């Protein structure tokens, strides 16, 4: 009984830990200037107002940064699925020499600190002419999202019995037809979850985006560079717009991740 109470307490602390900043940011993003600076702050937003938000969107460069962020995230999503899913499929379906070390190697790319890579990468990008472009940032974000994409899709494809594909082959499909007609429909929920996760990784990534862009900033990079010399309400509104997409996506993913587990456990 005591243990149960302890768990409950721990859960409450954890929930508060996560929710308090989100709550503060959200309420203050929708309050007027005065309440942003007010102390002590009330529990509920006192003065509902779009003043802060309007001000945020009024700042020069915000819209461009949002557009850049969307473009980069969409490219990251597409690259991660197009490169990650085939690799995951190969890992799931074929036994080849070095398959296991390949798995570890994929994870190692995640362990490699981006800070060491950043300067040579910037130099190389300048030489290639993709410095300060959404495409260049998307390439780095893809590298970050890819390990996740490969490992998740591989477990996803492992969860789809090989016999289903073989049955399709015996019924007149070639390999590609069998994949499109049988494997893909069953993999869609998991692939969607993978895609959304890649999107969120890109949307929230700030380090590479800051180093590899100058004028074509993504939203996090833009906010980071302008944070120190901007007023407090601007920071709250900016924080709000960084959190929201991630939150929405995690809610969507949640359902898909359960579906993914359902497939894996069948």
């Amino acid at each position, binding site marked *: 009984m005591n243990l149960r109470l302890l768990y409950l307490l721990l859960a409450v602390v954890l929930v508060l830990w996560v929710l308090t900043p989100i709550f503060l940011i959200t309420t203050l993003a929708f309050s007027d200037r005065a309440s942003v600076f007010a102390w002590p702050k009330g529990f509920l937003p006192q003065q509902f107002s779009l003043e802060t938000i309007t001000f945020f969107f009024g700042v020069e460069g915000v819209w461009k940064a949002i557009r850049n962020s969307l473009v980069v995230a969409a490219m990251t999503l597409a690259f991660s699925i197009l490169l990650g899913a085939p690799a995951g499929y190969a890992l799931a379906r074929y036994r080849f020499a070095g398959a296991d070390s390949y798995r570890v190697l994929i994870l190692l790319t995640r362990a490699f600190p981006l800070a060491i890579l950043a300067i040579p990468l910037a130099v190389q990008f300048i030489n290639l002419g993709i410095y300060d472009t959404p495409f260049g940032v998307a390439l780095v974000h893809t590298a970050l999202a890819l390990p996740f994409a490969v490992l998740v899709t591989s477990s996803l494809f492992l969860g789809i*019995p090989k016999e*289903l594909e073989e*049955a*399709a082959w*015996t*019924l007149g*499909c070639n390999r590609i037809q069998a994949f499109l007609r*049988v494997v893909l429909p069953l993999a869609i929920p998991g692939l969607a979850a993978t895609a959304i996760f890649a999107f969120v990784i890109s949307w929230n990534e700030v380090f590479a985006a800051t180093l590899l862009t100058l004028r074509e900033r993504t939203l996090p990079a833009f906010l980071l560079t302008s944070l120190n010399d901007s007023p407090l309400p601007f920071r709250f509104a900016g924080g709000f717009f960084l959190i929201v997409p991630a939150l929405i996506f995690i809610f969507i993913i949640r359902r898909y991740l359960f579906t993914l587990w359902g497939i894996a456990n069948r």
Partner: protein
Amino acid sequence: MAGIRVESIEKTFGKFKALSGVSLEVRDQEFVVLLGPSGCGKTTLLRIIAGLEYAERGRVWIGDRDVTQLPPRARKIAMVFQNYAVFPHLTVFENIAFGLRMQKVSAEKLGAGVERAATLMHIENLLERYPAQLSGGQRQRVAVARALAVEPEVLLMDEPLSNLDALLRLEMRAELKRLLIESRTTTLYVTHDQVEAMSLADRIAVMNTGYLVQFDEPMKVYQEPANTFVGGFIGSPPMNFLRLPVEGRQARIQSLALDLPTGVSSQEVLLGVRPEDLEAHTQQQPQSFPAEVLVVEPLGPHLLLTLSFGKQHIKATVPPDFDVRAGQTLWLRPQPDRLRWLDPSNGQAIPMR
């Protein structure tokens, strides 16, 4: 319709030799069962015929086409998998129609084909359902209907009944037999269940450790096993093998002397005799030998006795009303026309006459 012919198929997985030169011929419209313990290579052979695995050596013929190099889709086969492999995202109708859609048949032919296959398997009222809404037995029916719908030249089945519970398996076994007699499709059927093999097959191909051991009609395989493996694997309880001394042209069991086929020159010989071919008597009989009862197991239709004869154990079945207790001595009279002689050095049967 077509027959199947495989010639000296060899297949290794890493260091494990799965098939060591297997040759087999299935006649047109014949039902052949591949029977053997797990790991004997029977499923591998089936998958090689389906084109899902490729053999290192040997050829596969379906009808008069050499299909050794062809992918599964070009072999005009259909396969039923052990775990059914019914597509979970498609309705029963679409599952059965899958093969026909790949052949791009006309809409009315498609409807008629699905209708026919569904009616054969008695699942015409389930066509709108998804596999998740079906029981194991119903999924099994969908899998068979899907295979039959494409009217394959050859039907391959990989332990299709092994995932069903005992009662359902019995029911499906009888139904499969009816179905395949009706459709007269050449069928190759893999199982490790000897009762299933006996009940379904026109001929049984017994496999062990990558070799084809015996290929014959069920009753022949049962009564005249090619070696001790077949005699021991088929039949429950298995065949008895008694090691007996040879005296001239006869083998001796105490006072009982049995004539041997010609050409036996060894000191000893193995007598293979089925438990039901030993007639038990409480009194001494001519043409019999004594053995002491160790265990009596009442099994319903008969009693299963374990007896000791010297240091060797013998299984015998007697009628359920036979009055016998452990420790009693019985006289066993082997049926003279049901005896099988084997060479104790290699376990191979010695040909009669």
